[in-house]
């Protein structure tokens, strides 16, 4: 029955088309927000948007889902995260070995939730290959968010579709988004944060939610921290000057408070500061910051350069094209933002302003990757993919706009209009000719190649050929660990992550005689690569003989039995008293 005063604008959500335009108090007439250049999009009620997004989603899910278990090769990290998710599901704490603050645990806690139902009905499906399907859900969510974000950044419909396609269908994306990486989850949260920051309602609690989502992203994968400034820029640009101070402060507060829950967790466990006899958050951070650098990314032969090459092997358009676009956008945006250039409305500036946030994110991530002393992991590029795709799509939109509209008068002659369209067609065709064959080739590999046969065979061998798995100790890499556990090996001290044999005191203690307390080593490429620095693992490899080989060449997987006198007796596995009690 009661209401606040009616105003020029209708306060009902969903029907609003223009920002509030009333005279603000205190004699600031005409002070309005940076006006959106295009009508605000109501995604849920726009049928063409839903159809386009739905169709693209279907294609993305098909391409990413087909052959997902067989390509790419199972990675050690996937095994690590999924095994820790399994530990969470089992109620064993945050990991089945001592959790040592290597990463914030939120990522695999989410993974545990995501895989909870399937693993409830099919416990044996809790292995890396089959649980990649869970990542399909993450990638689908990210794709939709990508489209929504593109529209909220005022890209035209086709450009939003392009951004979504670039993000979901680039061979680089297909390969990386299939894998169980924390980065994929973090990207989903960060995209949500950007979507909320660019909410057309400019609602205080949307911005607050954006801060929460951003904090979740950071707690999922800590490297997302560097993207936060770009999020802030996006939020700043999309908030209204009258409510901005509340919105932005609220978002920052939300982000900081949620982010602080991680150190708080460490503090409550008495593991915030380093000390003897326990792990600590500070130790974990020190380890991550002090990881041996992989060299400058452009120095041939350095580790980082190898990683870069592996990315470019799958796709050049998204990483290089996107980065170039980001630099270009920032070059047009920054002088304006800093007040160096006169205000004006070139066609570029609309896109540049809207995409300033994503472009900044891409640029920051690139700069961080260029640190000569930093460690560049292979999955690093995942965080940049959405921003690169947005910038590239925005660049395409800007070029199209320039070609069709630049210098166009009201009564332009027909041939000239045709010439514009012809030029556009040529540009589009050449882009397609360049991109499509490469993508086709890359995605064909992803859809057909079986790279994981050796892993499957090795897992099957462990299940069928080992007589007494419960009393057998085997060193293997993380990707196979869950398979071994399902086959009856004891998690943690029977099936052992190979590097724990040297690095985790709680495990080393149960191997008083070194390699002689181990029955088998499953020698995968990762094991062979890292054994150099791991004395126990190296000794086990040296004192063992191959009993089965799967695959050939560099990628082969060998199962080796150690030369210990009589497997199964003499203190293996260790007495229960030696078990770590979990974290």
């Amino acid at each position, binding site marked *: 029955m009661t209401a606040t005063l009616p105003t020029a604008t209708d306060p009902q959500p969903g029907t609003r088309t223009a920002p509030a335009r009333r005279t603000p108090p205190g004699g600031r007439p005409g002070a309005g927000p940076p006006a959106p250049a295009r009508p605000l999009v109501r995604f849920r009620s726009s049928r063409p948007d839903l159809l386009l997004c739905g169709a693209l989603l279907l294609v993305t899910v098909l391409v990413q889902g087909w052959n997902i278990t067989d390509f790419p090769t199972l990675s050690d990290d996937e095994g690590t995260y999924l095994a820790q998710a399994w530990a969470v599901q089992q109620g064993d704490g945050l990991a089945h070995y001592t959790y040592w603050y290597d990463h914030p645990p939120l990522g695999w806690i989410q993974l545990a939730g995501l895989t909870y139902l399937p693993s409830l009905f099919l416990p044996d499906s809790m292995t890396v290959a089959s649980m990649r399907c869970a990542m399909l859900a993450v990638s689908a969510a990210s794709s939709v968010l990508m489209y929504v974000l593109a529209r909220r950044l005022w890209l035209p419909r086709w450009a939003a579709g392009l951004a979504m396609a670039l993000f979901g269908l680039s061979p680089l994306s297909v390969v990386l988004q299939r894998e169980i990486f924390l980065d994929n989850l973090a990207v989903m949260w960060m995209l949500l944060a950007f979507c909320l920051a660019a909410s057309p309602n*400019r609602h205080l609690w949307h911005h607050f939610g954006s801060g929460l989502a951003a904090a979740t992203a950071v707690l999922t994968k800590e490297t997302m921290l560097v993207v936060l400034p770009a999020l802030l820029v996006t939020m700043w640009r999309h908030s209204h000057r009258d409510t901005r101070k509340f919105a932005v402060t609220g978002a920052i507060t939300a982000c900081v*408070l949620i982010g602080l829950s991680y150190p708080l967790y460490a503090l409550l466990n008495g593991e915030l500061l380093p000390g003897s006899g326990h792990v600590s958050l500070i130790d974990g951070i020190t380890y991550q910051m002090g990881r041996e650098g992989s060299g400058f990314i452009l120095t041939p032969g350095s580790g980082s350069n190898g990683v870069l090459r592996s990315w470019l092997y799958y796709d050049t358009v998204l990483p290089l094209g996107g980065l170039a676009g980001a630099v270009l956008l920032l070059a047009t945006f920054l002088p304006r933002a800093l007040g160096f250039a006169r205000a004006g409305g070139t066609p570029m500036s609309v896109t540049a302003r809207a995409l300033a946030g994503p472009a900044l994110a891409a640029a920051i991530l690139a700069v961080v990757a260029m640190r000569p002393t930093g460690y560049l992991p292979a999955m690093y590029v995942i965080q940049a993919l959405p921003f690169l795709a947005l910038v590239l799509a925005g660049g395409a939109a800007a070029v199209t706009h320039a070609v069709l509209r630049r210098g166009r008068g009201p009564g332009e002659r027909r041939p000239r209009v045709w010439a514009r369209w012809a030029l556009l067609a040529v540009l589009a065709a050449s882009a397609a000719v360049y991109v499509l064959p490469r993508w086709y080739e890359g995605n064909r590999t992803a859809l057909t190649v079986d790279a994981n046969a050796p892993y499957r065979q090795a897992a099957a061998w462990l299940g069928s050929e080992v007589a007494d798995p419960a009393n057998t100790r085997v060193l293997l890499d993380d990707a196979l660990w869950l398979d071994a556990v399902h086959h009856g090996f004891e998690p943690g001290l029977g099936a052992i992550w190979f590097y724990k044999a040297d690095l985790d005191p709680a495990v080393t203690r149960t191997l008083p005689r070194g390699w002689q307390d181990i029955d088998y080593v499953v020698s995968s490429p990762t094991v062979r690569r890292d054994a150099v620095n791991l004395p126990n693992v190296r000794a086990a490899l040296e004192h063992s003989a191959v009993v089965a080989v799967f695959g050939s060449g560099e990628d082969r997987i060998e199962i080796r039995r150690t030369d210990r006198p009589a497997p199964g007796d003499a203190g293996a596995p260790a007495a229960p008293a030696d078990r770590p009690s979990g974290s």
Partner: protein
Amino acid sequence: MGDLLYTSVFIAVVSLALFWMAAFTLWWQMHAWRTPEVLASTRFDRPDGEGRLAFSLLLPARHEQAVLEHTIDRLLESSHTDYEIIVIVGHDDPGTTAVAERAAARRPARVRVVVDHHEQKNKPKALNTALPSCRGDIVGVFDAEDQVHPELLAHVDHAFRSTGADVVQGGVQLINFHSSWYSLRNCLEYFFWFRSRLHLHAEKGFIPLGGNTVFVRTEVLREAGGWDQDCLAEDCDLGVRLSSVGKKVVVAYDSDMVTREETPGSLVSLLKQRTRWNQGFLQVYRKKDWQQLPGRGQRWLARYTLMTPFMQAASGVIIPLNFAVAVFLDVPVGVAIITFLPLVTAMVTFVFEIVGLHDFGRQYGLRVRFVHYVKLVVGGPFYQVMLAGAAIRAVWREQRGQVEWELTSHTGAHLTSTAMPEATSEAASTSASASASASTAIREDSRR
């Protein structure tokens, strides 16, 4: 083990309850800033020229000869053409009466004086005394020390006509945030209440009105039987009664058109003022008019709003206790994290208060210094203690049947309970006149 489980569950439940309470309060407190459109809608619309409604402005004054003249002069500057000012004075207050009569003699067409002959005086009695002699379409209420903007009536006039409202509540703002640490918080409370929260109440159809700058259609007011003379928060009560029977209430806040006031002159008088409000809220709650509200959500809002002071007091005690229990007892880490949730909302509230203080400074062109922000944060817990004290006092007094200031003051001469000294000191602190009798304070809210 079982004990620990029970403790954990108990702590978790309490924490979650507190969390939701604080979260809801915060949500409502931030109502006006939800979107730019909502913020724009909280302001007055620009009036469309001539006013067409006639106003009767009630100005109860008690021992306020020092400020009354200025207030009347300021009201006479109004740009509106059709209004009368009715000054209500007590029969035992010759000083104020003289000032009022002088003004009436100067502007007989505009100013009239009504004398309240009640033995025990309070504000609702004064207002009810004047109600029969109101000639306007709209009755407006001001306090004797209010600084009213000349354009206000024109805007209110427009608001009545453009919205078909039965009640229009304008903004009231305490300004002297620099006076003391508690006045800083007090100002900010007003800011969040009138700037933001009241609009939510108007939107939801349940509203406790403010004590002044409130305008009601005369026939609506007469139909409702005027103000409740026995209620300590007659303003809140009126709003609750009117909105409960479906009257339309409109709230508008413009920083250049608010009625400016000052905080109580001492912490003790603030405590007493708050005690009276809390007790008034409690009375309104017990009168159960709000139960006529049609919507379940509205009734919950009513219940919650009227009980807020008491929940605030409870949470002020429970939050630190809960926190201590979580830290010092050996509860699981997950439970300990849950106990931090209310603290998290409290911190978010703190941050929004800081931003609110900044906005307040901007809106009123006041210079807010760094030290004020520090005071705001540091003073927070102490203010909470004061609020808790006021809430406890209110419950105590209500239980003891101490429902009237007058009663306590009059019989106070032979009372040795807490009631006596507070009544006297309060009247002394509120009245501009040093010779004011302690018996009949109309308001203890302000002090020049």
